[in-house]
């Protein structure tokens, strides 16, 4: 019997809608404000998205592994405060080392609790989030330091300099994207990550050490937070204890927009990059249009719901279940 399979090839649109979305967003905002597409503004946007972007790379890995991490914002505040406080009493170099150690330590704790002990990722990282908020204030001891002086000059390079008129932090972000995409597609670890996220039980039966894979994913996340913290410390040179508040929503929106499915098992750092750009343009565009920052929360909430809905609907073939 002959079977005719006839299906319109809509997969191109489904896979790449994110690029169209970016074009639409840029078009809307440049229509709303003439100076949106100016070189100065674009440079500002690139500068602003770098921190968000690096953290989004890490969270992409976590979500591919089928897990979650809500503590990244509080972790960022913690790392930032640690860097500045240590740098205040010693040198920026020790501050950086402390920040890297701190961020990765938090990642390791998360990874141990979620990966090895098998605790619920959401609730556990939510608990870590509240702990970190308190610990951040503990580190400052109520004092808000900022660092300055000639020995700090080289440290400013991370966040405040440019290479060929492109902000240094953005180049770091691009490097991150390249490295992460390489890890994801070309290395064994990347394969293991997708396998664990897709189906943890069967991956374990295939011989993959799923607990260790998840553990490392969280450490990588901690590393991303640490680097982001270094960049932010270099930008502000001051300890901001609530810097990361609300950043979780931005990062999750960017990753979800980028097409990484919340069900785990698949994801793409390059598309997350486009999601990050969209968020960055939105943030910048809202300010240029004169809308206060809280409108953005509303927009992001709606975006997340819509994007996840579309993702679910296309996967199961029905709008409602």
């Amino acid at each position, binding site marked *: 019997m002959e079977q005719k399979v006839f299906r319109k090839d809509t997969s191109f649109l489904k896979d790449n809608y994110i690029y169209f979305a970016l074009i639409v967003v840029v078009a809307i905002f440049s229509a709303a404000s003439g100076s949106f597409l100016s070189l100065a503004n674009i440079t500002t946007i690139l500068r602003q998205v770098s921190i968000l972007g690096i953290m989004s790379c890490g969270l992409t890995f976590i979500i591919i592994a089928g*897990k*979650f991490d809500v503590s990244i914002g509080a972790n960022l505040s913690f790392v930032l405060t640690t860097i500045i406080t240590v740098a205040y009493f010693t040198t920026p170099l020790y501050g950086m080392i402390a920040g890297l150690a701190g961020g990765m330590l938090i990642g390791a704790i998360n990874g141990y609790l979620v990966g090895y*002990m098998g605790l619920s990722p959401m609730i556990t990282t939510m608990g870590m989030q509240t702990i970190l908020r308190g610990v951040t204030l503990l580190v400052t001891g109520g004092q808000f330091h900022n660092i300055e002086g000639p020995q700090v000059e080289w440290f400013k390079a991370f966040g405040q300099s440019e290479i060929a008129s492109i902000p240094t932090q953005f180049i770091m972000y691009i490097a991150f994207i390249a490295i992460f995409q390489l890890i994801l597609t070309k290395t064994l670890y990347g394969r293991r990550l997708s396998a664990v996220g897709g189906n943890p039980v069967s991956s374990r039966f295939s011989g993959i050490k799923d607990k260790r894979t998840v553990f490392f994913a969280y450490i990588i996340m901690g590393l991303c937070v640490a680097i982001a913290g270094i960049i932010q410390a270099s930008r502000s040179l001051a300890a901001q204890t609530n810097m990361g508040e609300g950043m979780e929503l931005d990062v999750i929106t960017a990753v979800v927009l980028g097409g990484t499915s919340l069900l785990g098992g698949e994801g793409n750092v390059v598309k997350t990059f486009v999601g990050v750009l969209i968020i960055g343009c939105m943030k910048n565009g809202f300010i240029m249009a004169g809308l206060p920052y809280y409108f953005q929360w509303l927009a992001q909430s709606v975006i997340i719901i819509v994007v996840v*809905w579309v993702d679910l609907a296309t996967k199961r073939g029905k709008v*409602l279940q």
Partner: protein
Amino acid sequence: MKNKVKMLLRDYTIVPIFVGMVIICSILSPVFLTIGNLNNVLFQNSAFGVMAVGVTFVMINGYRDLSVGTLMGLCATLCMTFQKMNFLLGILVPVAVSILVGLLNGFLVSKVGISSLITTISTMFACRAVIYIISGEAAVAGTYAGFEQFGNGEFLGISTQLWFFILLLVVGEFLLRKTMHGRKTYAVGGNIEAAKTGGIHTSKVSIINFVICSLCACIAGILLAAKMNASIPTLGWPDIHMQVLAMVVLGGTSLAGGRGNLFFTLGGVLTISIVQNVMDLMGVYSYITPIVFGIIIILVLIIDKKLKPAQVVNELN
């Protein structure tokens, strides 16, 4: 007989925890066990208890509602804002809005199939945005002195705040134990597929529970607005939802769903309240409190895992 005691102890872990905490707290602070202090604890925390009642319903159903904190703040802001026009509006608008939010949460979770965590995180931020849009980053003061008297007053020696908590506990437990809805809630939380096969309209049950939870958040918001006779934009932020979740989870209601009751929640609310109270009495820095809450949550998760390793908590729920 011994097995039965073991099973009971395993479920009712909150009782020894609570008793232990009372003993520790009385040692840590001589003022703790006074009538005045205990009255104050109940007065300050009844609103959170009200929220915990609602969250318990959703959790038994197998889901989580993180939007309770900011929804509470939104209802407080709405109450204060609309009270200026008409006192009744100041009550009706928050109730209507919270029912809408509950319906939205329930619909997105049970009909669209989005994880309750993602849905309620989005709703949480949306509520927060609306608070700021309405109040413009300013506090809103109340219009009626009588309202403040109501919020801070007493009836038969028990504060009005506590009355609402007790009322909701009693009505809620009746709902859970004696009504069809309660039975269905346990069924859906226990095994949603089996419930569906058994003929239960699972999405209707879930939606009702999300509405119950949102209404509880609304009542809590109105109570808090009455207590302060004002609302501030940061009410319900940043981690009230964590505190309420800690209360419910500590009490013993399972994150996996299908088990739990409001007696557990009462125990959890009281335990967390006295922990906070004793830290205040000892003059501990306010930033230690979130650390303690977070550690409590993680410890409860670990103990839960050790006691019931076979229980699968569906993360994407």
